[in-house]
């Protein structure tokens, strides 16, 4: 069955009344759960698994896929309105989304996020349809050295993630990497920096750090400025309408990052988080006015939003065509497939075309639903900004607490959240940027793992990073991202 024929079969499944209904339920539930800090796509899918018992596998999986990208979409809302990123894939959206909301342009920020997500999602579904079989072979060609090089490339761009001192950005990154080393070492089983505390054996959760550094640190600023009349426009929704200039400004980043997000999503282990950070960094690098980033830039919001949604669809490539889950979320998805008696992998496309193509076709519809359902809801989402400041502060604290508690059911993590809130606030006071810390924390663990796997494969020889072409190319790019700005700076000084 060819792609077109297969897609027509898929559309038949997705366009049935049942298909449309369950896609709609999926994206709605996903959006709602994604908006709650702490409850990302993993929880959303896990919650839905028992509900799908006894359902037709195609319908159930269509609904699950809807839950997945709905949750990624919903995660942006709390990032933009409260600076409380619920999932790691939406951290980068808060860098410019939250400043926009503070400037009284919350409506515009949410509309940009909705449109960018829709475009990213749709572009990547088209690519998924066209390239799924071919890309799966590329994905398996990525060995540990290439992964290490990819993550190293992400880390080298850290200086462009923040304004101000590069040394301070690098210190933040090193501290983030240090935090990532806490817990049991995966290869030797050694306990590192746990101080004999059993709660630290598994290391710290991403959410503890993200909500501490972003949400609680923001709460501190809100407390200090609670009577400041000059920032009252933070209560305003502003117009939802995007101007021609806005569309023009976002068209480039959205197009570029939809493609990049998809490619990064296809790579197992990369996913929406790395995709959104790399998109943000790369857009900032090529922007004519990079100084606008972090202060409410349209490009800075549109790029990670297009990218994280594109990566979500991209993650389905290894899952559907190889049966390999590339992330925690797709691993839970794989669990859902197996529970429903469907084995994803190379045979899925030929044995169960209605499921393979049904899921892909449902993504087209799901993306349209996300846009149709969410654009009119923006004024209601943004009502959160009209909540009186003292009450909003208490509610944001509670949202963060519930989010962290719901992951571990352990009050120790809440104390850690409090600690990272204090660290985040001190970092703000002394002008240390938080984004490099969170990026290094997310990449650190994975980077160390792939570094050690690479050296195990090569019997300890570092040449493994030079002899593998993908790894070498990525390392050269990483080197260039360091050297080129340096040369430019020297030239400027000479000039």
């Amino acid at each position, binding site marked *: 069955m060819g792609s077109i024929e297969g897609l027509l079969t898929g559309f038949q499944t997705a366009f049935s009344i049942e298909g449309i209904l369950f896609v709609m339920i999926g994206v709605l539930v996903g959006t709602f*759960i994604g908006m709650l800090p702490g*409850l990302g796509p993993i*929880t959303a899918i896990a*919650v839905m698994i*028992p509900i799908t018992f006894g359902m037709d596998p195609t319908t159930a999986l269509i609904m699950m896929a809807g839950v997945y990208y709905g949750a990624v979409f919903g995660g942006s809302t709390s990032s933009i309105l409260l600076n409380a990123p619920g999932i790691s894939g939406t951290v980068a959206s808060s860098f410019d989304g939250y400043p926009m909301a503070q400037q009284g342009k919350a409506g515009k920020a949410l509309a940009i996020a909705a449109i960018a997500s829709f475009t990213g999602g749709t572009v990547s579904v088209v690519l998924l349809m066209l390239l799924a079989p071919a890309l799966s072979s590329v994905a398996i060609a990525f060995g540990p050295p290439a992964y290490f090089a990819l993550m190293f490339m992400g880390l080298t761009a850290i200086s462009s993630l923040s304004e*101000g*001192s590069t*040394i*301070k950005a*690098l*210190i933040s990154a*090193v*501290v983030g*990497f*240090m935090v990532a*080393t806490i817990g049991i*070492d995966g*290869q*030797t089983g*050694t306990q*590192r*920096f746990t101080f004999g505390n059993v709660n630290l054996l598994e290391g710290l959760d991403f959410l503890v750090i993200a909500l501490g550094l972003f949400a609680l640190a923001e*709460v*501190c600023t809100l*407390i*200090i400025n*609670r*009577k400041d009349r000059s920032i009252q426009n933070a209560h305003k929704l502003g117009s939802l309408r995007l101007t021609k200039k806005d569309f023009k400004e976002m068209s480039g980043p959205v197009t570029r990052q939809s493609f990049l997000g998809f490619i990064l999503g296809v790579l197992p282990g990369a996913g929406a988080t790395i995709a959104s950070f790399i998109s943000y960094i790369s857009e900032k690098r090529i922007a004519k006015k990079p100084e606008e980033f972090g202060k409410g830039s349209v490009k800075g919001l549109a790029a990670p939003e297009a990218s994280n949604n594109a990566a979500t669809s991209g993650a389905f490539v290894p899952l559907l065509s190889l049966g390999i889950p590339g992330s925690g979320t797709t691993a839970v998805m794989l669990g859902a497939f197996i529970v429903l008696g469907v084995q994803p992998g190379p045979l899925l496309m030929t044995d169960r075309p209605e499921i393979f193509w049904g899921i892909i076709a449902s993504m087209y519809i799901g993306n349209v639903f996300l846009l149709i359902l969410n654009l009119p809801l923006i004024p209601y989402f943004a009502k959160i900004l009209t909540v*009186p*400041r*003292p*009450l909003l*502060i*208490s*509610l944001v*604290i*509670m949202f963060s*607490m*519930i989010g962290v*508690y*719901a992951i571990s*059911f352990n*009050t120790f993590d*809440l*104390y850690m959240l*409090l600690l990272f*809130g*204090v660290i985040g606030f001190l970092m*703000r*006071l*002394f*002008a240390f940027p938080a984004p490099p810390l969170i990026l290094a924390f997310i990449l650190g663990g994975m980077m*160390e793992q792939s*570094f*050690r796997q690479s*050296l*195990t494969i*090569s*019997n*300890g020889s570092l040449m493994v990073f030079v002899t593998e072409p993908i790894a070498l190319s990525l390392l050269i790019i990483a080197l260039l991202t360091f050297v080129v700005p340096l040369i430019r700076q020297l030239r400027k000084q000479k000039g």
Partner: protein
Amino acid sequence: MLKTLNQRISIVLFIIAVGYLVLTFQLPSYGYTSVDADVIPMVLGWLLAVLAVCLFFSKDSETEEQKARRDIPKKDLGVLIAVFAFIFVYIMFLELLGFVVVTGLFIFFCSWFLGYRKHITNLIVSILFPLLMYITFTELLKINLPQGILPF
């Protein structure tokens, strides 16, 4: 000797780096691994120490906006510490008294302490928000939050 803020911060960071390195040297080593558990932490510890030294000699000057950000009135600092104390008490009693009771009390008293004077609205939010969250989590999402002293 320590003229700038950066120099004072760099000393603190250097001490952290040294402490981290001391802990790293105490990690047990295994002979048959390509990269032992202490290699990456050791690199990180040295890197932080070097960066702390760089910060000490860095000539980056603070912007006026950054300086103003640190200028917090003592009263506001007191309020900030008090809110953190509220959160601390909240965590201590969360599992003992239960989610609904502690969250309700936290929202009411924290909002009131921060200057919210519409007591009726505050009371309604303090009752409805925890209840709604509790029902959503326990009934719809099947995620158990601490029940505490309440019978449901």
